[in-house]
């Protein structure tokens, strides 16, 4: 059943650059890139239970790494991609100790600070980042269509890998850690190490997104990693269902497309409408936000949500 939906969707995604103009193709490439970063946000927010506003930081680290690899003619897009993923992971490894011990709203605050630090560094460290002027990257592919297909392939591969990982025992361990951390520890599981692992993996994914940004946009500047971007990523992931990777890609792409469309439609008033979108999401999708598990929605009447069970556990 799932394949009946998925196969035509993939076919359409591949065919799209032949159906629309170059400008739209380039826009779609950028949305794909943000969708990939959305996957890293969803991995932390929905699966691991660490709500984050800071994935713009490894995203930026990866982007600048990829741009530098390109500018120094070390290698083409695949090399840039690997370098960026590595730098993103290394960044996450360095900041993991700040994040994985905290929970809930404190994680939001800390990741927000990490994201802001990244922007500060990006705008001041001119030698590596070009400062607020940004860096113009070396052109990799010769058409928007090729760049789009490359981005699509990378996003497809990464999302597939993430989905496979989540269906493996590793995914079970992460979900169990999110469900009840104390019970995990009582069963001998080093929860903090698992969270750190997920955080580093999310860093690598966001870093890879950075490389794709450089390839598709051929330009990178601190404006790509603003606090607004971080908040929009979180919004997109929540709309997509937080725990769902494909939902994260779709939700993130939708949110950023809406932003671009709104700012074109009503210049100057986009923040107002965007703000309204945030508020509406918070009101209309509280269950998606709170439960992180949309598969359950269809059978809510029969099955209690994990949260409800936990509450029952506590009251018993």
């Amino acid at each position: 059943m799932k394949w009946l939906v998925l196969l035509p969707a993939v076919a359409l995604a591949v065919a799209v650059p032949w159906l629309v103009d170059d400008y739209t193709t380039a826009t779609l490439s950028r949305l794909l890139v943000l969708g990939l970063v959305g996957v890293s946000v969803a991995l932390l927010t929905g699966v691991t239970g660490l709500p984050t506003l800071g994935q713009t930081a490894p995203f930026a680290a990866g982007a600048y790494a990829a741009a530098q690899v390109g500018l120094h003619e070390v290698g083409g897009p695949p090399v840039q991609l690997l370098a960026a993923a590595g730098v993103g992971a290394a960044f996450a490894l360095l900041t993991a100790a700040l994040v994985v011990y905290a929970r809930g709203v404190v994680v939001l605050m800390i990741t927000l600070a990490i994201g802001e630090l990244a922007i500060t560094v990006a705008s001041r460290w001119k030698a590596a980042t070009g400062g607020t002027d940004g860096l113009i990257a070396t052109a990799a592919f010769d058409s928007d269509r090729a760049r789009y297909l490359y981005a699509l392939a990378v996003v497809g591969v990464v999302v597939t890998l993430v989905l496979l990982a989540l269906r493996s025992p590793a995914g079970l361990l992460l979900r169990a850690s999110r469900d009840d951390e104390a019970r995990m520890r009582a069963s001998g599981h080093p929860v903090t190490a698992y969270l750190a692992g997920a955080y580093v993996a999310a860093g690598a994914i966001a870093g890879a997104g950075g490389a794709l940004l450089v390839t598709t946009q051929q330009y990178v500047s601190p404006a790509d990693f603003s606090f607004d971007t971080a908040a929009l990523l979180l919004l997109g992931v929540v709309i997509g269902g937080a725990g769902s990777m494909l939902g994260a890609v779709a939700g993130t792409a939708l949110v950023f497309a809406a932003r671009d469309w709104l700012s074109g439609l009503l210049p100057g008033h986009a923040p107002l409408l965007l703000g309204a979108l945030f508020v509406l999401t918070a009101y209309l999708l509280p269950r998606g936000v709170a439960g992180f598990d949309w598969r359950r929605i269809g059978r809510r009447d029969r099955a209690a949500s994990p949260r409800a069970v936990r509450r029952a556990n506590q009251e018993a």
Partner: protein
Amino acid sequence: MDPYLIPALDGVAYGLLLFVVAAGLVLSFGVAGILNLAHGTLYAIGAYVAAWLADGGWAAVPLALVAGVAGATAAGTALAGLLTPVKRGDHLTQALLTFGLALAGGSLLVSAFGPEDLPVRVPAALDRPIDLAGHSYAAYRLVFIVVAAVIAVGLYLALTRTRAGMLVRAAVDDPQMVACLGVNPTRVRVGVLAVSGALAGLAGVLGAPIIGPGPSTAATVLLLSLVVVVLGGLNSVVGTLVAALAVGEIQTLGVALLPTAAPFLLYAAMALILAARARGLLRRWSTA
């Protein structure tokens, strides 16, 4: 040391300003468990009102104070009302909602007051330099330091000497307690966000000549006060004050001493403190 007297004094002014704003954030975070991403917008309301009403005369000062504080308090109360349907502890929804309101509120302020940074006129009598140990220093800033220090002491006394203040501190220490006391959580939330808005509005009116109203004010104030709250240890009045003064000095004296490193210094301090205390904080936070 002498050439750094002025930046150091500016740092005190800046730090006290941040303390008043951050106190409101600590309150909403600590007592109501809400990360209010619209907190900077509440400050901006105060600052815009000050810029709008101030005409260089003395009469405008109480007027701006009343209007600014009332406006921000009303906005804080409205925020609490909008947050009512969201469950306590659902941080993600709260963050989305408050960020959305911050975006929308910022947009409304810009359409009301224009997209430029607004100048703020202080009373003419204070709008002049005075002599301070051989340096000239803006009279307004000196007065601001005194007023802000009085507010800070007042806050401290209110929190440590009054019954309500002790309840607030107890609630920050043990979030479960509010529930156990049988106090209606909605009323707590409204009260806390109203007071938090009043503090932000007060800071906005008084601090408008220091961090002036403009499209980026809300974001700047929010981020700086978040840094202060985290550095201050999330729960202590004295800690928040020390952190606020430290951030103020880093932003002023730090820039004067180490112009290139100052912006990193702030976050490096934050990272270091968090890393050093991560394990200890885990135990606190995991119960929250």
